[in-house]
């Protein structure tokens, strides 16, 4: 999936680098109330991404953390706050970056099948990612998109939520999988790995054979790779 994102960016003319110091954005600590650890991690991320024109995440929740939440971590430190704001201003979710910043309107890719697209919460509500992935999917040869009844309702992942409150999370993802299956689609796409793993895990536990993929894979014409939770029979 990471390489699919890289391919999309390179095809759009970007030079892609992955800073070696890059680690997690700190969301697990942030959402658990551990502000001190979050700040320490955020400082590290600020350093790692210093000097790049844009920071692109194939995830609305990591992207939202950088562009929506980081500045509020440094209200008491004007220097770091300014740096966090500068980072926030150049941080994007992948499909939003391709469409809104680079002006990409289509991709060269083929995927035979019917897909349904789940709007991951952070991408949708913090970053306004809604039309961009659909616009790009429209250009994929052979692909048909069929919407769920409630594509904007949370899948029940919620990071640590799904292990802190497994029964509630299960009820939520159960409802989600019913909505997905009811579309008759053979593929489920979304832009966030957490949600995708949650929905894939539930669908597969229920015996569904739906393919679950990150949207980047289909857009990058890498839809022949093993889907999430499928055995990897490749010889690499």
């Amino acid at each position: 999936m990471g390489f699919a994102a890289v391919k999309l960016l390179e095809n759009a003319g970007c030079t892609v680098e992955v800073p070696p110091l890059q680690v997690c954005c700190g969301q697990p600590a942030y959402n658990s109330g551990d502000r001190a650890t979050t700040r320490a991690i955020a400082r590290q991320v600020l350093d790692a991404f210093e000097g790049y024109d844009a920071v692109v995440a194939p995830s609305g929740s990591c992207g939202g953390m950088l562009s929506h939440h980081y500045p509020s971590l440094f209200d008491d430190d004007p220097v770091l706050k300014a740096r966090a704001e500068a980072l926030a201003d150049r941080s994007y979710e992948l499909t939003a970056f391709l469409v809104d910043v680079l002006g990409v309107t289509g991709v060269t890719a083929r995927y035979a099948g019917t897909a349904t697209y789940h709007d991951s919460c952070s991408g949708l509500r913090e970053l306004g990612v809604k039309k961009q992935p659909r616009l790009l999917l429209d250009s994929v040869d052979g692909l048909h998109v069929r919407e769920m009844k409630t594509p904007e309702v949370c899948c029940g992942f919620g990071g640590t939520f799904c292990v802190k409150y497994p029964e509630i999370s299960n009820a939520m993802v159960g409802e989600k999988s019913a909505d997905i299956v009811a579309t008759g689609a053979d593929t489920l796409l979304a832009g966030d790995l957490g949600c995708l793993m949650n929905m894939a895990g539930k669908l597969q536990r229920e015996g569904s054979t739906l393919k679950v993929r990150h949207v980047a894979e289909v857009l990058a014409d890498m839809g022949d790779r093993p889907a999430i939770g499928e055995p990897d029979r490749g010889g690499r």
Partner: protein
Amino acid sequence: MQSTARHFKDNAGAALVDTNLQDSLSKLKTGFSERRRQAAERLPEFEALRDRARDIKNHALENLDFYLEEFERKVTALGGHVHWAPTAEDARRIIAELCKGVGARTIAKSKSMIAEEIGLNEHLEALGITPIETDLGEYIIQLRHEPPSHIIAPAVHLTKDQVADTFLEHHSKLGFTRRLTERNDLVAEARYVLRQKFLDADVGLTGANFLVAETGSSMLVTNEGNADLSNTLPRMHIVLASIEKVIPTLEDAAVLLRVLARSATGQESSAYTTLNTGPKRPGDLDGPEQYHVVLLDNGRSSVLGTKMQDMLRCIRCGACMNHCPVYGAIGGHAYGWVYPGPIGAVLTPQLIGVEEAGNLPNASTFCGRCESVCPVRIPLPSLMRHWREREFERHLTPRPVRQGLALWGFVVQRPQLYRAVTALANRLLTILGRAEGRLHSLLLAGGWTRFRDFPTPERGGTFHAQWQRRRS
């Protein structure tokens, strides 16, 4: 009301297997949100109105002392009385004394969440005064000795059949011995039974949606008209409201009303909007002889001027719970106290303590749907996160979570170590999941694998490892 918020997980577990509740919730989830969406779409200026509503409430909160005193002056000038209740206990005592002062035996109550918050009914009953709930939903749950499960639809957790059984049980002694099956018949029977109670009541007690400082009016919206009978027929009218309900002007109320009903039920306005402005005047044909307003603080003033002040903007429309997938899964009772859903997860720790209610702000995926529909734009996820931070600071976060977090934080802050640990985990998972690409159980991830398979990574190592290979 006795809190069971501490037992949130058990409450939620029971709710998830309650088939009647699940039946009711499935209707609620689509009904309210769809109607709100349509109502918002029909009004092009809806988003701008939400901004104005937020600004009005912010202005009122920033000048709360001024508007409350202004309100008190106006009520007093009209011949009414304002009573200040710093705590729940004060409010209960004041109301009991007012009731005793007129020798009240029954009081007709229109729906009031503040009355639930202070446990008014139990208190009055202990003193031999019978409160009668006149809102249909409240009446049903009063008969069943249940707390409300939703702030605007208190009996939303019940099915029609459950209501029919409850009415048969309680109304048969009044001569209604036929079990009803039609909604309209149930409503008609409740109306008939309640009508005499309105006529018999010595005191009418209502809540308030807004207190208007410029006129000294309390404003109340209902869809049943029960509040109007509660405040017109008895000789004493008591308004019970919390301090943050005050707003400057009638003009402001008009803005707030426009977002309130649309957010709550998708109506353009509620069926009844009533202004109560003082007691009956000479020459008035009806109205109460005595008019009292009890203003409850109960900890609210302590959040003024803090980041948490935003929670006081709430106009109690219920949109946050109507759109909350967690509320939609477990209903309101699981939250264990008066206010359920996202606003409950923010208010309850403030009102009864984060030690008791710590589960509530944790039981959220931070999906943000509540904030996206809130008519006064309360940043509910941020406020829930605030409580998680207070919990963490005070070492209330469960020890395994703290330890796990500390270990994870240690690793994340050492990028080399992080690479090594993720590479090892990647390798192990790849080997374990080789056959199927997923696992049916996984050590330390029982919460996940009880209900779902765990997808394992593709072969070839972590993205970082592959990236390094590609670069070299």
